[in-house]
C-alpha cells in the first residue's frame, strides 16, 4: 500500500462567476521514500491538490470529493479535528514564499516550538532543544543563537530552511513542498533542493514537490505528474516523462524550456494560448484549443470526447487521443536529439551538463 493514495479527487469552489473545477478527477500514489513532482502552468490545480490533501481547503463554498488515503486512512471523509491532528505530525507542508509564510511577530524558534508542541506534550525547554537541533540539521549556522531571531533577520534561503525545520519537527511521513524554490535565488534553490533530497534519504518519507520548473523536477523527482486544467495529462517515472513524453502538453512544456545540454538551433517554442478558465473548461480534451494535433486524430474526437488516462507502457500513462505510435513518431521529430538514455533529461538548474565534445549530436549545426 502506498503511503499516499489519491483517488478521483475533485475540488470545486462555488464563486460568483460559477463553479470552479480546480481539480477534476485526479488519482495518483506516492510511495514511502519516493518523490513525486507535480508540474503544470499556473492555475492547473497543482496547489489546490496539495492543499486539499492537507485538508486546508475545508470551508464553505468548497466541495471536495474522492479519496485521499494517507497510510490507508481516508482524509476526505475524516473529521476536521482528525485531519488537524495529522497535519503537522504525519503530513507537513512547506510553502512558496518563506517570508510571508512565517509569522513576522514570533521568533523562528518559537514558531518551530509551537509546531512541535501541538503534537508532542513536552516542556518548552525540550521543544526549544528540538528546535535548535532541527535548525542545525537544516544547516542554519549558530542555531542556538539564531533560534531567537525573527524571520526578517534571516535571509531568504535561511527562512526556507527554517520552514523545512518546522515541517520536519514531528517526523512527517509525507512532506509536500509547494513551489519551495520559486521565491529564492538560483544558487539558493539548488541548496534547498539538495537539502530536501538529503532529508528524504535520511527520513525515508514520501515527498511531493509542486513546481512549474521542470529543472526542479528533473533534479529531485522519481515520478512526475503533469497536470492540465485540474486533471492528469501525463503520469510516469521521471525518466519516462522526460525521455518519452506522451502528451502534446508535455511536449510543449519540454519545448518551452531552455536547455544547456543541446546546442541551440532555434528559438524556444512557447505553448500557444493561455491555460483555460476552470469555470468553462473546454469540452473534450481540455488541451485541444492549444494543441497542434487534433487534425491527426481525425474527426471531432478531441473537441467532444474527454481522453482517458491510458497506459502507454510500463506504468507510463497519458490522456491523449493520438495513438501511441503517432505520438512516438511526433516526439521523435520534436525531440531535440534522438532519445538516447541519459542525454534527453533537461538541464539542471545548475549549469553542470554542458555537451561533451565526443558525444554524437544530430542537431549540432
Amino acid at each position, binding site marked *: 500500500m502506498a503511503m499516499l493514495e489519491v483517488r478521483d479527487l475533485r475540488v470545486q469552489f462555488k464563486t460568483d462567476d460559477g463553479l470552479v473545477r480546480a481539480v477534476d478527477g485526479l488519482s495518483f500514489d506516492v510511495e514511502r521514500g519516493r518523490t513525486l513532482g507535480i508540474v503544470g502552468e499556473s492555475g492547473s490545480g497543482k496547489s489546490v491538490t496539495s492543499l486539499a490533501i492537507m485538508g486546508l481547503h475545508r470551508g464553505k463554498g468548497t466541495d471536495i470529493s474522492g479519496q485521499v488515503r494517507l497510510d490507508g486512512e481516508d482524509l476526505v471523509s475524516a473529521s476536521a479535528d482528525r485531519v488537524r491532528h495529522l*497535519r503537522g505530525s504525519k503530513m*507537513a507542508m512547506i510553502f512558496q514564499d518563506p517570508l*510571508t*509564510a512565517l509569522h513576522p511577530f514570533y*521568533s523562528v524558534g518559537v514558531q518551530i516550538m*509551537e509546531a512541535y508542541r501541538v503534537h508532542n506534550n513536552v516542556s518548552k525547554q525540550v521543544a526549544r532543544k528540538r528546535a535548535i537541533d532541527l535548525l542545525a540539521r537544516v544547516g542554519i549556522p549558530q542555531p542556538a543563537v539564531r533560534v531567537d531571531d*525573527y524571520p526578517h533577520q534571516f535571509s531568504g534561503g535561511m527562512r526556507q530552511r527554517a520552514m523545512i525545520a518546522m515541517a520536519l519537527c514531528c517526523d512527517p511521513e509525507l512532506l509536500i513542498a509547494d513551489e519551495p524554490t520559486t521565491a529564492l535565488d538560483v544558487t539558493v534553490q539548488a541548496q534547498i533542493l539538495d537539502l530536501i533530497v538529503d532529508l528524504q534519504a535520511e527520513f525515508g518519507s514520501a515527498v511531493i514537490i509542486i513546481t512549474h520548473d521542470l529543472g526542479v523536477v528533473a533534479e529531485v523527482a522519481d515520478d512526475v505528474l503533469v497536470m492540465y486544467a485540474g486533471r492528469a495529462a501525463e503520469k510516469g517515472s521521471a525518466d519516462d516523462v522526460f525521455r518519452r513524453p506522451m502528451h502534446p502538453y508535455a511536449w510543449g512544456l519540454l519545448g518551452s524550456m531552455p536547455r544547456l545540454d543541446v546546442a541551440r538551433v532555434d528559438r524556444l517554442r512557447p505553448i500557444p494560448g493561455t491555460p483555460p478558465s476552470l469555470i468553462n473548461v473546454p469540452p473534450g480534451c481540455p488541451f485541444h484549443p492549444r494543441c497542434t494535433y487534433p487534425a491527426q486524430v481525425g474527426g471531432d474526437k478531441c473537441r467532444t470526447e474527454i481522453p482517458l488516462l491510458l497506459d502507454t507502457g510500463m506504468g507510463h500513462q497519458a490522456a491523449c487521443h493520438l495513438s501511441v505510435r503517432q505520438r512516438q513518431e511526433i516526439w521523435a521529430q520534436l525531440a531535440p536529439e534522438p532519445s538516447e538514455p541519459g542525454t534527453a533529461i533537461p538541464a539542471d538548474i545548475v549549469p553542470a551538463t554542458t555537451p561533451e565534445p565526443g558525444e554524437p549530436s544530430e542537431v549540432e549545426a
Partner: protein
Amino acid sequence: MITFIIRRLITMVFLLVVVSMITFGIFFLIPRLAGQNAYELAAQYVGRNPTRSAILQMEAKLGLNDPLVVQYWRFLKGIVVGAHYNDGPSQTYCPPPCFGYSFRSQQPVWPQMMAALPVTVSLAIGAAILWVVGGVAIGVLSALRRGSIFDRFTMAVALAGVSLPIFFTGLISLELFSYKWPLFPNVQWVPLTTNPALWARNLVLPWITLAFLYAALYARLTRAGMLETMNEDFIRTARAKGLPERKVVFRHGLRAALTPILTIFGMDLGLLLGGAVLTESTFSLPGLGQFTILAIQNQDFPEIMGVVMLAAFFIVVANMLVDILYAVVDPRVRIT
C-alpha cells in the same frame, strides 16, 4: 531605546513650545495687531464693572505693557518655575506649572484643570476599556463569520454607531435609562475617592455612550484587519502545523491584526484625555471638556491656553508611547 526616548522627549518639548507660541500668538498677538491695548486686556482680568485704578493695577501686576516677547517668556517661565506677581505692597506667587489666572474666577488656571482632570480620566479610561474589549470582540467574530446574520447585524449597528453623534445617543440613553426606566437615576459626578460605587454607577451611561461610538469604529477596523490577516500566508502555515483554530485565530491572526489598532487606540485615548467635550456636556460631567467649553464661552484666554497646552501634552505623550509600544509589539520595528 534610551536614546530614542531621550530624543523623543526633546522633540516633545520642542513641539509643545511651538504649540504655546501659536496659542500665545492667537490670544495675545492677534488682538494687539487688531488694535487692542493693554488697558482693555487688563480690564478683562478685573471682572464686571471695574474701576479704572483696579484695571491699571492689574495691568501693572501682570506686566501687560511689556513687549510681547517678554510676556511670552514670562508665560513659559511660569509653566516651568512658577511666577511672582507684584500686587502693590505684597507679592502673589503662582506655583509651577503656572498658566496664569482665569479672567472669570481670578483663580490660577492649573489647579482648576487638575480638579477637572479626574473626571475626564475616569470617563476616558472606563470607556476605553469598554470599547476596546467590545469593539475588538465584535470585529473578530464578524470577520470569522463574514456574511453571516451576526456580521450583517453588528456591522449595521456599527455604521449607526459611527454615524450618530454623542449628544443624540447620550440623550436617548439618558431618557431611556435615567428617566423612563431609572436604572441610573440622577447621573452626576461623584469622585472615586468619595464613593466608588456611586462613581461607577453614575459613569455607566457616559461610558457606554462614549464607548458605543468608538466600539463601532474599532469593530469595523478589527473586522477589516482580521479579514486581511486571515488571508495571509502565515495563517495557512499555522493551520498546516495542525494548530487548533482557536490558536490560529488568536495567537496568529489577532496578534497581527491588532498591531495597527494599537496606534489608533493610543491617539484616540490621548485625544480624549484632553477633554471629551460632547460626552461631558451631555452628562454634565465637570471634566476638561466642560472646562474648555466654559473657557471659550467666557473668552477666558488663560484658561483656553492652559487647556490647549494640556491637551497637546496628552497627544504628544500618547504619540510617543504608541511608538515605543509598537517597537515592543512588532519586532520588525527598530527604534533608533
